[in-house]
């Protein structure tokens, strides 16, 4: 996720400290000249990984430090992995397979590419899954593994983070 705030002296340090306190992981700190803010004040963006349920806690901690968060970025699914699936993907309710990931709230299937060969032959699909962080990705892959077992699909998981 992305947090944006004004870069007045001391604010950055004050904002960074609570992040680790709630188990967040800072990915980048970006300074940028924001057109909309008056004068020469810089805006700061902090890109971080965080369990979604701890966001409220973080925001109140940051506020407690006297820092004003201007905006919270929409891009919360920063972690991406590719999974390949083989089997009777359509006939085992593809919609449901995707749903089981999407309904978690912390992971989503954001891309699906499917190749269908002759009827009755197994088809192959590539799923791009996005999740809030590595732990959530593990959870999502675990769910997918369960679905695959139930529907007799073969899933080929990534060995390490890809893309």
């Amino acid at each position: 996720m992305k947090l944006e705030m004004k870069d007045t002296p001391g604010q950055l340090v004050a904002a960074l400290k609570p992040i680790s306190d709630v188990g967040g992981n800072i990915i980048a700190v970006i300074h940028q000249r924001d057109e909309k803010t008056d004068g020469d004040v810089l805006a700061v963006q902090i890109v971080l990984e965080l369990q979604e349920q701890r966001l409220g806690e973080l925001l109140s901690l940051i506020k407690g430090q006297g820092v004003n968060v201007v905006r919270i970025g929409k891009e919360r699914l920063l972690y991406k992995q590719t999974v390949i699936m083989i089997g009777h993907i359509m006939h085992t309710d593809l919609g449901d397979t995707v749903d089981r990931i999407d309904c978690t709230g912390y992971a989503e299937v954001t891309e699906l590419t499917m190749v269908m060969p002759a009827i009755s032959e197994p088809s192959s699909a590539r799923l791009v899954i996005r999740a809030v962080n590595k732990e959530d990705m593990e959870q999502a892959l675990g769910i997918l593994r369960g679905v695959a077992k139930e529907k007799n699909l073969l899933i080929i998981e990534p060995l390490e983070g890809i893309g």
Partner: protein
Amino acid sequence: MKIAILGMGAVGRGVLELVDGKDLGLTVTGLADSKSGLMDKDGIHIEEVLAAKQERGYCGDKSISATDIVEQADYDVLIEVTPTDAKTGEPATGFIRKAIARGNHVVTSNKGPIALHYAALQSLARKHRVSIRYEATVGGAIPVMHTLQHGLAGNRVLAIFGILNGTCNFILTRMAAEGLTYDQALLEAREMGYAEADPTYDVKGIDAAIKLVILSNTIWKRNVKLDDVEITGIDMLTTDALRLAEEQHCTIRLIAEAVPDRGVLRVAPRVLPKNHPLVVEGSLNAITIETDMAGEITLIGKGAGSRETASAIIGDVLFIRETHARGH
């Protein structure tokens, strides 16, 4: 140093040829195949016995068995290179026990006894103050056991990842490179002599899993068994799946993985970036060892073959000679 060899297949012949052709200071005093045996404490004439085996199908005297060689021949190290029986480990395990009980070292390429009875054989060997080494059981020519036991001594091994079956790697390489179907690639692997007539053990991931068990028990000594490994083979893979991976600059490989801290012990096809160090071509094997001090180490080499496997065996024999110099 005197060696006795059980088995005259690809591996046994490889050892014989190298001992004959290179000046290694090794003398073969006992030899057996499935039908016959031969012993000579002054040294067997290797060229003659190789020719005899080729001509008539057996190497020595039909009244002498492999057990006779183990129990009666005059040798320092038994080289056990008979076929792998992954379910019972026999008759190899019996041969190995007898040799150790006689106070002889053992070097084997046979996965059965090591995967099934590692702890028991090690403690028997300790009791008799001899060594049992098995470098050739995993990764063919790759000196992975030496690396783990000596080169990386003092490191904590956190995880291992490996391509441990050359047949599967060959099939996947051909499916990706030429767009062959699984069946076409398997046929090609057979024609090239990489796949057995019955490829089940290879393509179902069982062979890789057995090797993962051997590696795990060597490193972590937790006595894991083949049943503890979660196994998925490559026989259901489609050409489309490989193409879908390819479109993202990735490919698919059969990866054996052990991460004890996360309770992971599995063999399964996985998606990897094509520039990943484990992505090797053809029948090659590769093993990545993740450690606390050395970081990641990846070893790549030929996972099978007569001379290559013999190289690992000879490395073990010479290591034993160095560490147990007994003046023979």
